[in-house]
Structures are given as C-alpha cells and as structure tokens.
C-alpha cells in the first residue's frame, strides 16, 4: 500500500511539473493515459520512470555544470590529485541498484496483470495483411462468425496534397473494429504475410502479428469512444498506411451492430447465386479494385514493375480467364501477390476479375459469375 501511495505522489508531482506548468498542451507530447485499467497503470509507470530519470539527469548535469563553472583554469582553479575512492565507487554502484529495484516493482506488477489470462467474453482474430487488417469475431457456430477487412480510408488526393487533409488524416478506416465496453475482449493476433504489429495506444496493447503464430492479448475498455492506432512493425511499402480504428460502444449498440453484420453476411452469401450483369460486376469490381488491388497495381493498372506488374495488356489478363482467376484466388508464392480467396467473398472476386479484364483498355468483354468462383472455392 505504501508503494501505491508513493507512486501516486510521484505521479502528482509529475503532473505538476509537466502538465500544469507547461504552456503548450502537454497531452499531445506525452504518452496517452488511455481508457483501460492497464493503460493507466502503464501511464503511471511511464510517469514514474520519466520523473526518476529527469531528476537523476538534473543532478548529474547540475554537478557537471557547477564543476565546469567553478573548476575552470580561467578562474584560477588548481587541479586536485585525487583519482580514486572505493567508498564513492561503492556508493554509486549501490544507489542505482536501489533505484532500479524501486522501478522494477511496479513494472513487474503491471506486467503480471497484462499477462493474466482468463476467459474472455469475446474472441476476435486480428489478422495482418499487406496493408490492411482482417477481423474475425469467433463464434461456436461458424455460420454466425463475422469477418471483414479494415483498410485505410484516406484518399490518395489527400496524401499527394491535391486536396486538403481532413481530420484523422491517415487514421481513418472503412470498417472499424467494434467492441462493447466493460467486456473482456481477447485479441488473437496473427499475420497472413509479413510481420505486422497491432497497436492501439489507448489500450496499451501492442503485439506483433507474426505469420505462423497466434499471440494473445486482451483489453477491457471503460469509456465509449473511437480509438485509433497504427501498424507498428515495418511491413513493406504501405506500412505507414494501415491504421487501426476501434469503436467502443455500449453493449446494446454492439449487439445491434453484430446482428446487422450477420445479416449482411447472409445476404452476401445469398447473392452469390444470382446472375450478375456486366455493369453490376464492373461497378462492384472497381470498388473492390480500389480498396484491395490499387495499392500495388496502381489506379491505372500500370503497377510499379518489377515488384508490382502492370495489368494493362499483360499476358495473364488477356490470356485464359482460368489462370487469371487462379492468380487472384491463390496468389503467387514468394511475391507480394496474396491469395485473395481468403480475404474476399465470391462476388468480390468475380467482380474484380471482370473489372481487370475490361478496364484500362483491356476490353476483352469477358466476365465471370460469383457462382463460378463459389463452386471453385468450395471445390477446394
């Protein structure tokens, strides 16, 4: 208990030093306190160690500056001859050890509570892709599972300074993760390609998403709100453009949202059976292309060869539709071309293939129906 008191005393001192006296808005310059018990503990730990380090620095630098002013030749200082003192050496070995122990105690406590595993109310699989996130809400009944991709919404025009940058520049996504407050949420974090890291500063959750591993992390959010983070591990070209947005809502709102997602998934499943027109496929295909393919193959389909090949008049696009479909569904090992069969639904895949074969002067007139893709996927 004593420790807790002392910690809060230090934190109070910290806020006095760093928050109240600062002229600028300090909150933009410091770690965020966040909205979970854990994130507040981490913030407190950060403030303690920041203050300890600042005080040590001030003392050491103070002594140095005093010495530089008083013990300079130009003020007639005569050098002493002392050059060792076992007592002093022992003193400045023991003192840091004591300070470190004082710091280790709260760190150990916080770390232990972060690693407390327990049953979660909701399990969400977070899967990193180059360069977007996929969220899957696990359910005992696989038909009830909700799965969607979450990619950055900021348009190229803002990034290339052609239009004004809006609030939440680079930090907005098409489909945010939605979670209820006051529920224990378990994140099962993994990756489909390279290593990413899923980081939401307000939850103090940062975990690497590593292919072949599923790592666990958890949070309980206190306050409704929209919390933003970013990928924190270099993952290739668009590492800077894969934000994370979490919308924490009251439980009833979450239930409504979840029901709606389930219904939409069912509808999408049902539309697979219908026969789409060319216009429908092209319209949908352009949408999917811009969300999914454009980052590499570019808006005009020209790509960035050789890493990202051009789609305009390429042998694959003008060749048999079967090979083209195989490429989109299964990807190409050893390249950035992913297996989109796992990310997109049959309608999206059919639409984007149709779009690629008919856009940018590729006017082949070919089209492929979602039902064909569906048969192919379920046949696998």
């Amino acid at each position: 208990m004593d420790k807790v008191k002392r910690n809060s005393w230090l934190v109070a001192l910290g806020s006095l030093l760093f928050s109240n006296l600062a002229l600028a808005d300090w909150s933009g310059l410091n770690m965020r306190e966040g909205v979970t018990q854990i994130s507040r503990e981490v913030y407190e730990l950060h403030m303690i160690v920041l203050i300890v380090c600042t005080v040590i620095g001030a003392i050491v630098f103070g002594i140095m500056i005093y010495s530089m002013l008083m013990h300079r030749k130009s003020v007639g200082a005569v050098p002493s001859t002392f050059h060792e003192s076992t007592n002093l050496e022992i003193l400045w070995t023991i003192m840091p050890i004591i300070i470190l122990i004082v710091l280790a105690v709260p760190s150990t406590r916080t770390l232990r509570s972060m690693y407390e595993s327990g049953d979660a109310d909701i399990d969400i699989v977070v899967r990193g892709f180059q360069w977007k996130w996929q969220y899957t809400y696990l359910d005992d009944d696989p038909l009830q599972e909700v799965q969607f991709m979450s990619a950055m919404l900021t348009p190229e025009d803002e990034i290339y300074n052609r239009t004004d940058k809006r609030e939440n520049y680079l930090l907005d996504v098409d489909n945010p993760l939605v979670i209820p407050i006051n529920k224990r949420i378990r994140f099962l974090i993994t990756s489909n390609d390279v290593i990413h890291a899923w980081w939401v500063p307000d939850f103090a959750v940062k975990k690497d998403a590593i292919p072949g591993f599923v790592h666990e992390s958890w949070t309980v959010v206190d306050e409704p709100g929209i919390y933003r983070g970013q990928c924190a591990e270099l993952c290739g070209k668009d590492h800077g453009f894969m934000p994370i947005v979490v919308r924490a809502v009251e439980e009833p709102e979450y239930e409504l949202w979840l029901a709606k997602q389930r219904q939409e998934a069912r509808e999408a499943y049902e539309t697979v059976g219908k026969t789409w027109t060319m216009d429908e496929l092209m319209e949908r295909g352009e949408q999917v292309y811009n969300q999914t393919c454009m980052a590499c193959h570019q808006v005009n389909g020209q790509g960035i060869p050789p890493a990202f090949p051009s789609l305009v008049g390429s042998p694959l696009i003008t060749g048999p539709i079967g090979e083209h479909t195989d490429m989109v569904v299964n990807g190409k090992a050893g390249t950035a071309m992913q297996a989109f069969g796992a990310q997109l639904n049959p309608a999206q895949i059919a639409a984007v293939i149709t779009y690629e074969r008919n856009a940018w002067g590729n006017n082949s007139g070919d089209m492929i129906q979602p039902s064909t893709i569906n048969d192919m996927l379920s046949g696998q």
Partner: protein
Amino acid sequence: MNAVIEEHHDDHGHGPDKGFMRWVLTTNHKDIGTLYLWLSFIMFLTGGCMALIIRAELFQPGLQLVEPEFFNQMTTMHGLIMVFGAVMPAFVGLANWLVPMMIGAPDMALPRLNNYSFWILPFAFSMLVSTLFMDGGAPNFGWTFYAPLSTDYAPPSVTFFIFAIHLMGISSIMGSINIIVTILNLRAPGMKMMDMPLFVWTWLITAYLLIAVMPILAGLVTMMLMDIHFGTAFFNAGGGGDPVLFQHVFWFFGHPEVYIMILPAFGVVSAIIPTFARKRLFGYDSMVYATASIAFLSFIVWAHHMFTVGIPIAGELYFMYATMLIAVPTGVKVFNWVATMWRGSMTFETPMLFAIAFVILFTIGGLSGVMLALTPADFQYHDTYFVVAHFHYVLVPGSIFSIMAAVYYWIPKWTGNMYNESLGKTHFWLSFIGVNVLFFPQHFVGLAGMPRRIPDYALQFADYNMVSSIGAFLFGFSQLLFLFIVIQTIRGGKKATDQVWEGAHGLEWTIPSPAPYHTFTTPPKDLAEAHG
C-alpha cells in the same frame, strides 16, 4: 624524443611510397588508419544525405518528394551505411592510428591482414550502394531486415546485400583479430594490462565482442540466402520455419553490435576529459571492470528488442531485469567522468567540448534506455519515434561526437598542424544545437504515438517533425564545415608541439608531431606516462 628521431634515421630511412599504389599496397598502420577514417567520412556523408532525404520527406505531412518504396530504401540504407560504414570503420581507423602508438608498438601485429581488412570494405560498400540502381530497388526492409519481409518478400537486390554483409563481417573479424593480437603481444616491455590507456582496453573488449558476434550475423544472412535461393524454410512459417528465430539470432548479434559502436567511444572520452581537466582519470580500475561488465551484459539482454513478439512472462521479466542492470556499470562510467572533471582545472578546447557533450547527451540516451527497459512501458514505446530518439542520442551525440572529439584531439599529432580552434568551436556549437533540435522533439512525437519507419504521418505530429527536420539540415550541413577544417589542417596551420595539449599523458604524445611514418621501432623505456 630525440632518441626516437635518431633511431628513425637509422631505420633505412624509408618513408611512404609515392602515388596511388602507396595506399593500395600499404601495410603501415598510420596509412591504413587514414584510409579507414576517410572511408568512414565518405560513408557518413552518404548515409547523411539519405537521412536528409528522409527528413525532407517528413518535413510536412503528405508525400512530397519520394514514394513510400524509396523511403523504405532510404531508411534501410541509412541505417546500414551509418552502422557498418560510418561508425565501425571510424573506430577501426582510430584503433589503427592509436593502439600501436599508445602501447609503444612499431605497427599492428598483422600488417598484411590489416591491408586486406581495409580493402575489402570499399568493394562491400560499392556493392551495397549499387543495389540502389538495381531492378526492384535497394533493400527496403529496415536495417534490422526482419524475415519474412527480407526473404520471401524482398527485392532481388537482397542477395547483393547478403554478400556485402558477408564481406563487412570478414573485414571486421580480421580487423579485430589484428587488434587483439597487437594488444596482447606488442605492448612495450614492462607495460602491464592495467597500465594500458582506456582506449586500448575498450578496443580490446570491443574486438572480442566483434569476433563473438560477426559469425552469428554471417550465419543469419546465410540462412536468409538459403531461404531465398535454395528452398529451405528457416524463417518461413509455411515451411515449418520460425520468423521469430530470425529476431533472436539477429539481436543476439545486434545487441553486442550496438555496444561495439559505443565502447571505443568510452575510451576516447576517457582520454580527453583527463587531459583538459588536467587531472588523472578517476577510477581507472572501475572503468575497466565496468567496460567488461557492459560487454558481458550485452550478450544476455537481446530480447529486450523483442518485448512485443509474444515472449512468455518469465522471459519478459528476465530480460527486463537483466537490461536494467546495464544501467549500473554505465552509471559508474558517467560518475567517474564527472568525478574526473570535479576540482580539475578545465579548459574547453574543441575536443573537450565534444567530450562533455558526449557525457551529457549519451546520458540522456542512457536514461531513455532505462525507460525502454521497463517492459510494460516498452509496449507503448516500442517501434515509435521514442526509440528512434533513444538510439540516435547514443549513436550521434554518443559515438559520432566521440569520433569527432578524437579527430580534433589527435589530428595535431597526425598532421603536425593545429586545427583552427574558432572554426572547431563553431562546428561544435552548430552540431550540438543541430543534433538536439533534430532528436529531442522525436521523444515527444514518439510518446504521442508516431510509429517509426513511416513516410507520412497524422496531422498531430506535424509541428515537431518540422522542427526535427530543421535540426537535421542544420546538423547535416555543419558537417561540411568539419570536412573543411580537416582538409585545412592537413594542408597547413600552426605547427603543433610534440605534447600538443598541456595536460596530455600517454606514449603517443612522446613522439614528434607529425608522427613519423615508423614509430617505436625500438620499444619505449619510460612507461610512467602510459596512462593518464
């Protein structure tokens, strides 16, 4: 001193050969030291230009100058070139010049090997830099080149990167064997280990670190090569491999590596501060033991770079405690330097200014290191600009300032000419202000949540990034002044005395300025001055 000159006369009187072949064929430690230092400076400017491209792009939010792909190539090449091309060769160059002169040896123990270890490097770095012009571009996966981004997802140039790393490793291993053999075998008769100057001590320990970890790096890039070209799956989860293994091996090399870049700096500062405080180094013995402790600890803390990869809690706790321990011997060093200054009689020539700035700014980097050691807090700091600020504080005003301090301190001995003191001080103050304006704000944007290695950032980080970029250009262009001062000193200037600095102690100050081509062809007898 006269004795030395006369002996030099008797020594068949051969000086350096003439022309370009002198530098290609040289086995003279002073020539090779000079070559290393110039290579290092060229790489420093090259890596610096890349840093300026990065900072120019980050001057404002949005993409203005470069595409994300090229930005990633710049961050990668900047890191690799600065680590392997600027800092490490500079210290090897200083070791070549100084170790034989400090221990009273005529040359390095293995002069031909010395020539090879240098001449490998221009080829290695030409190959590395040439990847910029290859199809698919240069390596773009960060200087830590984590798999699978650097294997299955890498540009084709990664193979050249691997070969360049192999060459650098061979060079480093040969260089460190040479340094160890020289120090252990060629000390002037009567000079005991505990009589050696601290620079010699720190380099001895550094050389052992190099020999221990460079083969690990070689093994790592070889595994990458196998994964890329020969169908193995060391790091490919799809083939039963383990991407995290890559990080364990990398940091088992990488953590000692970062100390390789700072231990010789400790030696430099431990030579300079006593000279200008006119007082012996405080706690020589404890300095030696602290250096050895830091070197030992560097092998058992590697996973603190990987707190977020999902290590079990027992591992997290162990690596946290072990990492915190490093603060103890590092603290001892800082306190010893302060105690050396205490009640001395200080003057503030350029080397001393750089040395004092080293102590202060390195300490700031060390303190943020303590913050990063605390695992729960590290979850928030990891891979943000806070980390960028931390390691740049220990590497730029740490290692690089110590190298500059060393150049100003010993250049009168090397060239026989004094540098221009007021220009030197101008260079110091521009660098000091520049480096702080550059890196201090990065602590804030990092805490506020800006990830590292991103070409564009959210609007709330705009102000401090602009400040940081201004500092970068100030610091960067100040180094042209350094180049000018060095060339000016080589070409002429006030003649330096043999002792050069009033308070200097050590064998290198007993020989004439400039140091003759061959020194200590007979070992010195008076060793009382060997360490300060």
